[in-house]
């Protein structure tokens, strides 16, 4: 058994038209049967949020890597690592003539071991699902957290970020972990955000089971950047599709 990672990150039409960079970032690491993955979505109105999302993703992965062997039994250590990474980014990312809000981003991540379980950690919008294929409703779901309105959410740069950092336990037995920023959610998540949308998940997973990660990731990117996807949302889009299976595709 091994983790096979398919990942796609595309710049939304809204940013392409204005010559803005993609404000999403992601990072993935595996150590044996342990998966550590993070996606981050920079705030649209924050002028350096692409740097913020990148710095946040990298810092969290680095902080969790040493804890990969304690994934389900040492939650306080995991919480301390993630919170410590956020504090480090908050302390170090500023430079002259910037304020912390310039680097605002959301955060969705996981550390998971199929035999023992794990956790989602989540600040703001975006979503995460751990499923046992083909039950797309999922063993665990971390839904988005918005304010009352769709275009309000929570960022690591806010003073009360600790209050808004959520942890969700994932039971053992999942063989699919999907992490995404807000952009692809309308067509990847089911209505009500209670799991993956079967009409998306089933054909995607069936296809990816037949192709190697590099080619599959490219086709996944083409899917979330298709004309159909752009009609649904002009936002940046990032999707990680991590499969735990016996035989990797050639």
């Amino acid at each position, binding site marked *: 058994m091994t983790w096979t990672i398919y990942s796609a990150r595309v710049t939304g039409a809204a940013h392409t038209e204005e010559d803005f960079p993609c404000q999403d970032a992601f990072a993935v690491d595996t150590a044996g049967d342990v998966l550590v993955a993070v996606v981050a979505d920079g705030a649209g*109105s924050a002028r350096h949020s692409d740097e913020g999302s990148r710095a946040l993703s990298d810092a969290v992965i680095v902080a969790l890597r040493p804890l990969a062997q304690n994934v389900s039994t040492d939650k306080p250590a995991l919480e301390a690592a993630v919170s410590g990474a956020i504090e480090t980014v908050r302390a170090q990312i500023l430079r002259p003539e910037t304020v912390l809000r310039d680097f*605002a981003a959301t955060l969705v991540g996981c550390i998971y071991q199929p035999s023992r379980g794990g956790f989602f950690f989540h600040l703001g919008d975006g979503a995460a699902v751990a499923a046992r294929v083909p039950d797309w409703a999922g063993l665990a779901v971390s839904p988005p957290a918005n304010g009352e309105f769709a275009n309000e959410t929570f960022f690591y740069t806010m003073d009360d970020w600790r209050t808004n950092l959520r942890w969700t336990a994932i039971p053992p037995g999942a063989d699919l972990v999907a992490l995404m920023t807000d952009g692809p959610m309308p067509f990847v998540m089911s209505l009500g955000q209670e799991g993956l949308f079967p009409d*998306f998940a089933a054909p995607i997973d069936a296809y990816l089971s037949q192709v190697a990660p590099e080619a599959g990731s490219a*086709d996944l990117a083409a899917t979330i950047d298709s004309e*159909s996807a752009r009609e649904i949302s002009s936002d940046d889009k990032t999707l990680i599709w991590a499969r735990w299976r016996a035989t990797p595709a050639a």
Partner: protein
Amino acid sequence: MAQPIIMNLQNNRVERTPCALVLDMSGSMGEVATDGGDGRAIDSLNAGLQTFDGELKADSEARRRVQVLLVGVGGEARVLQEWIDASEFTPPKLTAGGATPLGQGVRIALERIETQKVQYRANGIAYKRPWLIIMSDGAPTDDWQTVAQQCRQAETDKKVTVFSVGVGGAALDTLAQFSTRGAQPLDRTRFGEFFVWLSASTATVSKSAEGQQVALPPIDNWATVTA
């Protein structure tokens, strides 16, 4: 070369941008203009609604995301169109008559906005901050002070965005009480421009990303300025 795995993706989460319009249909809106304006204000308002409808339908995202509620105020205050997607909206033809119970009309709109939010949440539908447009060519003829204060408070509490618009010789000082940004004067000849602005503004808001400051189109092509 990379190819999409699925060609036609289904949208499971169409965010809504609710837009409630409280429109004066009182007797004065049916009077022929004597100030150099063109015809009756009610005719211009009806034409403006058609423009609003056409502009929204022409925008592929706005037609799915903007929802419209119409409350008419003329003799009585009543809902002319319950919440409906812009893609399904057909503007009713408004007729003028009666007094101006604007307070009751705004009360109805505020209540409908809150009940619609409950529906959105119950159905897992995300929504942007609702817009409330209040348009009158005169002054309220009912008890309006309490609801005006409630309206301003709702805006202060970020529950709704309010634009109060006074047509022709409207009582702007009174209409200003309904919104924290005061009241904007609208020339009777510029209903079309106003509704083009409204459709463009709601479309822009409906497509805004999280945390994005939205730059609305300028109002100077429909708002009048007192020299």
